[in-house]
């Protein structure tokens, strides 16, 4: 018998959010029922069902996590990572503007590279320490960029999409880089461990 695999995005979403204690069992339950539905109804119905289950489950788990008070530790770690990586980014920005590229045009090109690298490094560090910290860090990055745009911190005239890129790609870099680096895979499932 051939077993279908649920959409990769659903698996990624749940693997990122569900606590390690019951991640395997919960994903197994979902995959089992997804296969039953795909067989008895249709893959489209099964897909719709798994998406609805994933979204509702994420909401339930987030609520239960907030009620347990674990978010305080995650927020503290995110704040720590934010400060350290923020200071490093500031040092790199200053070095670039003073030593490497004093011209505005070069700064406009280099700024997103430095920003996205800092966001990616921050995301990886936060995910390594505590998975929940990554979400808070993404929120902090988003708020920082939004405030910077609103206060017009950037004195160089740039198009709207340039600023919008910072607002969307920054938090995404925080969330996606740990997944790409394999930091969200359960430690027991990692090869050689």
């Amino acid at each position, binding site marked *: 018998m051939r077993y279908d695999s649920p959409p990769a995005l659903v698996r990624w979403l749940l693997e990122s959010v569900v606590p390690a204690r*019951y991640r395997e069992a919960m994903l197994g*339950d979902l995959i089992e029922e997804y296969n039953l539905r795909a067989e008895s109804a249709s893959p489209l119905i099964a897909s719709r069902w798994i998406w609805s289950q994933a979204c509702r489950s994420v909401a339930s788990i987030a609520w239960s996590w907030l009620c347990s008070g674990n978010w305080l530790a995650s927020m503290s770690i995110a704040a720590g990572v934010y400060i350290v990586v923020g200071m490093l980014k500031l040092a790199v920005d200053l070095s670039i503007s003073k030593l490497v590229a004093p011209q505005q045009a070069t700064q406009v090109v280099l700024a997103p590279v430095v920003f996205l690298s800092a966001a990616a490094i921050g995301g990886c560090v936060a995910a390594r320490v505590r998975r929940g910290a990554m979400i808070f860090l993404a929120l902090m990055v988003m708020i920082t960029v939004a405030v910077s745009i609103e206060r017009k911190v950037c004195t160089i005239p740039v198009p709207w999409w340039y600023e919008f890129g910072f607002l969307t790609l920054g938090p995404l870099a925080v969330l996606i880089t740990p997944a790409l680096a394999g930091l969200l895979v359960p430690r027991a499932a990692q090869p050689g461990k």
Partner: protein
Amino acid sequence: MIVRREIEKRTGRSISIGAAYATLERLEAKGYVSSFTGEATAERGGRAKRLFRIEASGQKALQVSEQTIRSMTGLKSRWESL
């Protein structure tokens, strides 16, 4: 999965798998239920099952809840007869 289906069957309400696990986790933390890992099968994508068992303290808490609900129902019918 069986726990979730049973709740859906008895209550007539659809519940998410995440809500079922989050609740079972809370009950386990309170010592009302205990869990152990079952076998992994191909239809589960090679992932192991988690099986739950109600503990003595859980059964006692359930009895207390049932008694409370029964006495509240009795109170309601007494009010209605007044």
